[in-house]
C-alpha cells in the first residue's frame, strides 16, 4: 500500500515535537476522519529556520507531516506558502488514492503557521 519512503517517514518521523520558542504555530484538522496536526516554525530573516510537528492520524498523515518538515526547512516564507498538499504527496513518491485526503493536513498546517507568524509579527 504505502511505498518505502512513506514507511520510512512513518517509522522515523523527522522533526517531531513542540518548539517551545516557536514564532508561529499552525493547527489543522480533518473533522471527517479525525486527523489533527500541529506545526511549529521558527523564523529567521524571513526563512524557516526550524520546524517541528505533532500529528494525530494514520500512517499517511504522519508521513506527510514528517515529509513536509523536511521540505520547508531553510525555505523562504513566500516559497513555503507555495507548497501544496499535492507537492507533499508527490515528494513522498505518491500515496494510495484513498489516503490522499490524509495528506491534506500538512500544507494547510504550514500555511496556518506562517500566517500565525505574520500576524504576530505584523506582516499581515
Amino acid at each position: 500500500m504505502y511505498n518505502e519512503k512513506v514507511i520510512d517517514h512513518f517509522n522515523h518521523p523527522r522533526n517531531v515535537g513542540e518548539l517551545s520558542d516557536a514564532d508561529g504555530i499552525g493547527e489543522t484538522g480533518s473533522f471527517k476522519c479525525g486527523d489533527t496536526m500541529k506545526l511549529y516554525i521558527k523564523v529567521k530573516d524571513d526563512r524557516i529556520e526550524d520546524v517541528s510537528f505533532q500529528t494525530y492520524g494514520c500512517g499517511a498523515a504522519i508521513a506527510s507531516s514528517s515529509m513536509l518538515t523536511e521540505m520547508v526547512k531553510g525555505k523562504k516564507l513566500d516559497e513555503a506558502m507555495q507548497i501544496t498538499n499535492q507537492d507533499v504527496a508527490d515528494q513522498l513518491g505518491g500515496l494510495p488514492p484513498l489516503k490522499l485526503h490524509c495528506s491534506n493536513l500538512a500544507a494547510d498546517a504550514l500555511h496556518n503557521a506562517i500566517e500565525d507568524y505574520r500576524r504576530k509579527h505584523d506582516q499581515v
Partner: protein
Amino acid sequence: MQSRLVYMDHGATTPVRKEVVDSMLPFFHDQYGNPSSLHAPGRKVRQALDEARETTARALGADPEEIYFTSGGTESNNIALRGAAKKQKGGGHIITSSIEHHAVLDVCRDLENEGFKVTYLPVDHYGCIEPEMVKEAINKDTFIISIMAANNEIGTLQPISEIALLAREHGILFHTDAVQVVGQLPVDLHSSNIDFLSLSAHKFNGPKGIGALFMRKGVEINSLYRGGSQERKLRPGTENVPGIIGLGRALELAVSDIPHKKKRLESLRDSLIAGLLQIDDVVLNGHPRQRLPGNINVSFKYIEGESVLLGLDMEGIAASSGSACSSGSLEPSHVLSATGLDHSIAHGSVRFSLGWGNCKEDVDFVLQKAPLIVERLRNISPTYHSR
C-alpha cells in the same frame, strides 16, 4: 513478508487447513464432472456434493435439504433478506440492529429505497441488543427480523435464542448472520427457532468464495438469481464443487475442535486483553465476557487506529481497525459509534482476532511490541500532549 508473522486477523479471514485443501484437490482435475450431468463422471461428483451437504447439515444440527450453498456470507445475507422481501411484494417492515455487517445493513437500506420500512435497533454500551426492544419494535407489517449472532468488530454475542423465540411467537421470520460464530461456538439449528442462518467458509479455515445459507424446511422465499436448477433454484449456477467439499470438511473439523479450541482462545484472549489494559488510557470495546472466544477490541486513546496497525505490521503483527482511515470510508466504524463511543476513541480502535495457530508466544509478542508502538505514536500526537 515478515520473517515472523503473528496473524491476529482471523475475523477478516483464516488460512485454509491442510486437510481441507487435501479434500478439495481431487475435485479440480480428477473428479471434475458437472454434478448435473447424467454420466459417470457427473454422478460421482453429485455423490460427493450430497455427502458434503450432509456433513454441513450434521455440523449445524440441520437437515441436508435445509442447506443451500452460496458464494459466501454476503450472498447468504442478501438471499435471505432480499428473498424474503421479494416474496412480500410491495412492502413490509424489517427489524435489524444498528451494528450489523454491511451485508445486512446496506441491504436493508436498499430495501428502504424499494418501499420497505426498517427499524435499526440501538445497542447498549457493550453492543448488546435488548430482546425487549425487539418486541416493542414488532408491528403488524413486520415479516423478518435479522440480528447477527456475534458482531465482527467487537465480538459481542447477542441473545439470539430469545429473539428467535420472540419472532416465532409472532409468526415472523428470523435470520441471523452467524458468519463470525459458525465454527467458533456450537450451533444447533433444530433445537432453535432460527429460520435462516448465514455462514462463510473462509472464517473457519475453509476456502474463500464459498458459504451457505440454512433455510428451515417449509420457509419459502423468492430466489434472486435465475438460471439452472442448482440448489433447488434458490442459487442457480454450476456448483463450486471444490469449494463445497472444502466447506464441508472445514466445518466438520472446526466444529469438532470447538470444545478444546474455545477454551484455549478464551484464555489467550483474556490474557491479551489484560495485558493491553495495562497500557495507560486503553479501553476495551465490546462486552467483557459475552464475546467471541478469539475477539479482542481495544481503543488506544490519543492515537489513530491505522497508525497502530501500521506499527504492528512493521513488527509482523497482522490486526485490523475500525478507524476511518483504515476503511477508506472517512467514517469511523458504525459499530463503535452505535455503542456510544466518542469518535476520537473509536478512531483509535484496534481488533486482534485469534484463531487456530495462535499461541501464548504470539500474545506475549504483541504485549511486548504494542506498548512501544503506542508510546511512539502518542509521543507524536498533539492530543496526547494537550490531554
